[in-house]
């Protein structure tokens, strides 16, 4: 239990554009291990929603099963949440999203939940470009079932079980990129400065936004040998800091290699990138992929916004969905009535 809810509210707690205090974005007390990376992600999501002034009840939180998938209970207590079944949150999120296109959807998953049992649904979720933010709290292991290697565990990394992973780890970010995701980012749970704007950008993106967050499991994978442990991760981070500015606060607009780029998102908001290396371009899928592969070959984890296509078409558009949420339609819109039915009968005689 690493994250305690303040017992009382400070009367002069700062408020956001909607008048909410940050406490309005709190969830229940976390029951994760003290120091678990996942708790920092919860905090970052809470902060991001506060800063972006999203009404908490307009967000829906979805997850699978795992320590990571438990986190939605620990943030945004005023939002509805759905802790579904292991690895199948993508489909639940898809259904929820088409049922009500007006809410903001955050999916929280783990590397076991996404890269193992959920792999099929994950790939198809990307292909459908569901309008949601999909976060993987990636610790290279199955925390909740006590630390078995997951499919993202790096080759040769050693879990508490002792024997080194004999398979190559699956890189979810490059997979997402190859499969056509329109927003792909990676960060580190302990890096608040990078994480919060990434989450805000992802939520503002009109389409599928994927954030792979390296989130160390302090209990089962925090020791030498595991390249996803705190120590190992810190050493391998090649940070690409990123700043998010909603339109009304727009500050920067220029972007050159080595500097900062402003990208206008579909909802009109703008994100600012700091590009750490000359070779990384966020608007070229293939180049982004190659940068990631190159970093990977150097055993480095490239973080930051890796790819963005602001002009993507999300599932609601592909399906040509009505602008009113499907779940709000009533008899009048849905039911063709007896006259039509009688004419159908006529055609069947």
């Amino acid at each position, binding site marked *: 239990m690493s994250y305690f809810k303040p017992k009382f509210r400070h009367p002069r707690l700062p408020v956001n554009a909607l008048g909410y205090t940050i406490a309005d974005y709190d969830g229940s007390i976390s029951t994760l291990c003290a120091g678990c990376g996942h708790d920092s992600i919860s905090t970052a999501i809470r902060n991001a929603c506060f800063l972006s002034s999203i009404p908490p009840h*307009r967000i829906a939180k979805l997850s699978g099963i795992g320590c990571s998938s438990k986190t939605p209970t620990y943030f945004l207590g005023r939002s509805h949440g759905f802790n579904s079944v292991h690895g*199948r949150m*993508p489909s639940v999120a898809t259904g929820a999203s088409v049922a009500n296109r007006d809410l903001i959807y955050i999916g929280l998953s783990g590397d076991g939940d996404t890269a193992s049992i959920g792999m099929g649904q994950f790939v*198809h979720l990307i292909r459908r470009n569901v309008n949601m933010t999909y976060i993987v709290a990636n610790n290279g292991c199955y925390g909740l079932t006590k630390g078995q290697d997951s499919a993202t565990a790096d080759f040769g990394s050693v879990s508490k079980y002792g024997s080194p992973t004999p398979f190559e780890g699956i890189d979810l970010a490059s997979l997402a990129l190859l499969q056509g995701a329109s927003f792909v980012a990676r960060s580190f749970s302990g890096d608040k400065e990078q994480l919060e704007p990434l989450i805000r950008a992802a939520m503002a993106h009109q389409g599928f936004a994927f954030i792979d967050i390296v989130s160390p499991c302090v209990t089962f994978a925090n020791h030498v040998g595991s390249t996803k442990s705190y120590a190992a991760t810190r050493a391998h981070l090649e940070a690409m800091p990123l700043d998010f500015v909603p339109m009304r606060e727009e500050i920067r607009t220029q972007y050159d290699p080595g500097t900062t780029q402003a990208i206008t998102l579909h909802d009109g908001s703008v994100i600012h990138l700091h590009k750490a290396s000359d070779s990384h371009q966020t608007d070229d899928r293939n180049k982004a992929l190659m940068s990631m592969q190159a970093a990977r070959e150097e055993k480095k984890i490239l973080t930051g916004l890796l790819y963005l296509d602001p002009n993507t078409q999300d599932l609601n558009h592909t399906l040509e969905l009505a602008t009113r949420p499907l779940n709000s339609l009533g008899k009048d819109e849905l039911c063709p009535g007896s006259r039509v039915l009688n004419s159908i009968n006529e055609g069947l005689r």
Partner: protein
Amino acid sequence: MKQIKGINDFVVKFANVNGTGSASANHLFAKAIFRMGIPVSPRNIFPSNIQGLPTWYEVRVSSKGYLGRRGGVDLMVCVNPQTMEQDIADIEPGGYFVYDNTKPLAPHLKRDDITYFGIPLTEMCMREFKVPRLQQLLKNVVYVGAIAALLDIRFSILKDLLNDQFKGKEKLIHPNVRALEMGYQFATENFSCPLPIRLEMGGNDAPHIKESNHILMNGNTAAALGAIYGGATVAAWYPITPSTSVIDAFSKYAQRMRIDPGTGKKNFAILQAEDEIAAMGIVVGAGWNGARAFTATSGPGLSLMSEFLGLAYFAEVPVVLIDVQRSGPSTGMPTRSQQSDILAAAYASHGDTKHMLLFPATPRECFDMTVQAFDLAERFQTPIIIMSDLDLGMNDVMSPPLEWDDDYEMDRGKVLDAEALDTVEKFGRYLDVDGDGICYRTLPGTHPDKGAFFTRGSSKNEMAIYSERGEDYVRNVDRLLRKFETAKSYVPEPKTHPPVEVKKPKSRKKLGALFFGTSASPAYEAVEMLAEEGYPIDTMRLRAFPFHKSLDEFIREHDVVFVIEQNRDGQMRQLIMNECHVSPDKLASVLNYSGIPITARTIANQIRQALDLESANVVKLHPETV
């Protein structure tokens, strides 16, 4: 030779090769009989492949309105040499055989007790038509023309049907009509038409059919219309025979009826998922979010959906699933019919689960029950599984017309909106406020401060807070039982018919028959056959699980009850044994599980056998001995 006689009462069967276009020609035949006002029921018996294998089309004609299979074939039309030997063997003594005699029939295929009608179909078509595709295709229409003459089908009706069918492709009308005429003419010139078995316009002695202005449609289309009228907005599915056409039809109607007039946008979403797990996940997500959502599947899909069905049961999410049953287990016989998913559906998923099932028997019921399924799903916040099957779903069945009450209002169940939440003092998602086991839910996004809760497949307390306390768990699952109990008076009640009167009953025992879905039609017919033999049997057609109280009564009031179903293990009988308090001595199974729909004769035979044994020992009626 004695020839079978009969007006508006016989069975015709066509033996074809699939992929040759025979199905639509055969349908023309059946539809023409329907248009003559005579009760008819065609069945397509097709292989699990796309081209080149045997396929049959069996047409039951019955002035009494028996729409189930009778058993036996009176007139066989065989244009498939692969199966000819067996097809000839299947004809009743005194029956008729129509075949292509372009090549002469092998001598060993000759029977003394049937009448042969050779028609040089191939030769005639080669002569008449130039395009090879037409030569092949129109053979089917030629034989339809010929049997139209043999059976006395009104020719103008056939022509009308062709005109309807080829509306927009007028070029095709002429060769088709020509082919019809060729067959008709050949038959009148070469055979003495009509046969002792034949049709007579309007020969319908079934009052219930006569009165109700029947339609001819398949159950899957009807279910799809039910989803349209029931207000379904989200359909997710994965292709699988024989349920695929539910979604095909839903898609077709939705494109027509669900386009927003202002924007041209869609008031529906259809998602072809990557598999059945995902299809059910989508439905669960949409149902959780307040949309009426459904999926349709068959056997293997049902198995794959079981984890999600358990979630929906325990997390209390409305879900509608149309299970169009086929022959199992495993891949089984994908294009054959059974009623064998009953236990798998009723108890889907691990742990203590029970799901509500509906059992439609006609397209009309497919329509009605699908509408009702959405109401029940939202009222009871649980999966509703509609147990159709291939026989009902994919065949054209005569049915009372679909009816719609424009005053219908969707029952969205106990959902609190923002206004209601404002007045509620304490919202607890799993508080049984009304004592009926059904709690109030809220939808995401409803209210800025109140009503948000966490949905989960794990144990929780009444405030929807995660809980591993035994008391919380027990209170919750006991409430789910209470909810199931409440459902008994909401689901469609069983149907009983007034008993058939028997002058001198041969048995002192009070006999009953229970059945459901596609077993119903042949069961009614069998019961009438047995009544004529002196055995009065009361009937009850089950329409839903949980069972209505009247089922207990029905069983109590009878000494022996035959449970008629189409699976090996007597699954409905088992469900009744599990859920009602019944002595097993009372329930005798009548079973068919060959994949081809059960016939009235099979039912009557099994009951007769059982009744013969009965005098000796009633316990013997247990399915192992029946």
